């Protein structure tokens, strides 16, 4: 029996050694192929100060596709880091901001508001457990610690923490040899052909459950915490709604109610939401149902964003 116990210990010890090696290799591969993940971008950026940090869901991501971030930097003279991530709501965005602020600072925050992200736990608590995000997130004790806190206090599934700590999603990554690029970036130069059925299925995807007022209240409160965090760091916050095609906007459920609730929250804290959603209606500005393509981003930048990014920082921290 003693011999059996000894053998079991040796077996487990060797297994742990192999696991360690595999874990290390998976982490190296992740660093080699990392690209879109916001936490990867923070790690790769190294400590430092930024003029702008961009947060939000996928509608904010085209601002960092291809070389567009560099272009914005050249034209505005501002140092910008885009930490938006597909399908992420205010809870995940706040998590990213907290990680960012550990070793970095920013003067301004551009938050891209999307109503869908305020209506479902799928875009908030559940996003933490998404394997595509976890497998591209570098291991870091600080991230693990904060994830621990979120799993205890913010309703994030402990499975996500277990996955992150064990590195399971990285070890089990089917695309381990491919670059971590969101599929939208590969279509950046494409022009969208309008399709009512595509819009319908996209809306069903974004709003998987009936819009619950309780969910909106919950995620507006999370968003308010994000704004508080920015304020505490003396970060100026600019909130925008990105342009979307009219066909898409028309299908958004309860958009007016959402805008009203958001405006009321922002008014209470002294913020303003800049609504550019109806600014670029033509399909030629989009690569799919609702994301700007290169032409669209360039147009949006020329019309509004350049001026907005380059405007001098308001000393009170608000616009």
């Amino acid at each position, binding site marked *: 029996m003693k011999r059996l116990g000894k053998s079991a210990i040796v*077996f487990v010890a*060797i*297994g742990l050694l192999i*696991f360690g090696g*595999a874990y290390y290799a998976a982490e190296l591969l992740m660093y080699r192929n990392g690209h879109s993940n916001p936490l990867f971008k923070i790690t790769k950026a190294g400590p430092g100060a930024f003029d702008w940090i961009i947060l939000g869901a996928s509608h904010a991501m085209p601002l960092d596709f291809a070389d567009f971030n560099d272009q914005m930097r050249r034209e505005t003279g501002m140092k910008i880091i885009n930490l938006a991530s597909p399908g992420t709501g205010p809870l995940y965005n706040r998590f990213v901001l907290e990680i960012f602020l550990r070793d970095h600072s920013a003067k301004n925050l551009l938050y891209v508001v999307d109503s869908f992200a305020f209506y479902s736990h799928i875009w908030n608590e559940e996003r933490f457990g998404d394997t595509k995000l976890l497998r591209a997130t570098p291991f870091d004790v600080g991230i693990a610690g904060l994830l621990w806190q979120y799993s205890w206090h913010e309703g994030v599934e402990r499975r996500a923490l277990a996955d992150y700590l064990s590195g399971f999603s990285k*070890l*089990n990554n*089917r695309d381990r*040899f491919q670059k971590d690029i969101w599929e939208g970036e590969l279509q950046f130069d494409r022009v969208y052909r309008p399709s009512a059925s595509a819009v319908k299925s996209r809306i069903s995807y974004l709003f998987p459950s009936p819009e619950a007022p309780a969910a909106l209240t919950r995620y507006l409160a999370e968003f308010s915490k994000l704004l508080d965090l920015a304020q505490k760091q003396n970060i100026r916050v600019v909130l925008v709604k990105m342009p979307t095609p009219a066909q898409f906007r028309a299908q958004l459920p309860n958009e007016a109610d959402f805008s009203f609730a958001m405006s009321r929250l922002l008014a209470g804290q002294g913020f303003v939401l800049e609504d550019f959603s109806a600014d670029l209606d033509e399909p030629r500005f989009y690569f799919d149902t609702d994301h700007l393509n290169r032409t669209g981003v360039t147009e949006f930048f020329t019309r509004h964003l350049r001026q907005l990014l380059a405007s001098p920082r308001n000393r009170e921290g608000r616009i």
Partner: protein
Amino acid sequence: MLFTSLEFFAFLPLVLLLFSTMRVSQRWAVLLVGSYVFYGIWNPFNLVYLGAVTLVVHGCGWALERAKYVIIRKALLAAGLVTVLGSLVAFKFYDFAAGEFERLVAPTIAVQLPRLAVSTPVGYSFYAVSASSYLIDVYVRRLSGASHPGHAALYVAYFPKIFAGPIERATHFLPQLLAALRADPDRIVLGLQLIGWGLFKKVVIADNLAPLVDRNFAIAAFASPIELLIGVYFFAFQIYCDFSGYTDIAIGISLLFGIQLMENFRRPYLSRATSEFWGERWHISLGRWFRDYLYIPSGGSHAGPARQYLNIMIVFVVSGLWHAGLGYGVGWTFLVWGALNGGYQWAGLATHQSWRRLGERLPGVAQSAVLVVFRVLLTFHLIAISWVFFRARSIDDALMILRKIGTNLLDIASVVVGYPFTADHFLGMALIVLLLVVEIFDERRSVSQRLATAPTMLRWGVYYLVIFGLLILGRWQAKEFIYMQF
């Protein structure tokens, strides 16, 4: 709860812990409660069906044991079978049959029949046939109907086998509950090996083949012949690894509790004839169920050649109907699949004497490796053709797939060279080769026995390969077991 879910990896140690701390005579109770939790978590309402079948089994069994008159015994058996198997037939086919009937009479009369709109409860096909075998065994006095009610309930609900078998016999299962339920170290080692290999077959092999199969069958009308051929080959291995993976895990888990379930698969793709495939190697527990409860009672091979051919066809058609289910829908394809396999048995029976004579006259040729390999390949391809009907959405689709492959068969070799194989294709092929290598080794002498006598380094190396294969290549978020859906 799936065997591949995180919940199950917490559930099983908990049940094992409770099992080992309980007195030996009460361990069955832990398994019964665990089984109800396991099944109820999937959908609590399913416990109603399970409870009803258990009541029928125990109630009819108890009454059969006490009934003295043959007519009452027959009535009790009929009542039990009609309730259990009749409900299975109703769940599976009523809505489909009603729709087909409406379609048939539509040109003359417009009929709108009511619908059950109830899908077959998960695992029902398996525990319904187990339950009916219990009743028949009590009726023919192979089994006492006065079994412990808890034991009878556990026989129906036992969690490792409830979703997809093996279709255990009460005559084999219940005596084990009466003996001390205790796992010895050898059984634990074998159980863990089976669980590991079963998981590997399911999440590494079957679930890595599944996306290519699903894609190629979904776009059958637009797919090229080579894509369809890949889909057909991959599906043959997907369904084998999916189903046998489940039963390996079920048998392995049971060994941890000291319970031995019957063998369900024995390297089926090494069969030299379709009769060997169905009779001795594939889904053995179902094959024996049909043999003992349908084929033999119908006269089997003792009622003359014509009757034997008819009995064989009945068994395979009924088997086709049993397989119809949620997984790939309830349609005529399953009937064709069953009939086709019945046809294979007819052909096998008709040529059996010729093979025997060849063996006698030219033993060297009959036993030659070339002929053996040819027969194995022929059997595999016949079975793979039948799987097309099993997997396709309709008979038209199945025929179209076979036609496309058949008419382009001579060109496929040249197309293969230029086909843009992806990493997923190569992974799938490598996993199939690995599986076949293991099975060929296992055929000569069980891999478990080989491992027991192998040097520690080699044994542990194999264990690490399986464990890290599961970790690195497994598709853990993927799919339910295919046979759970029947």
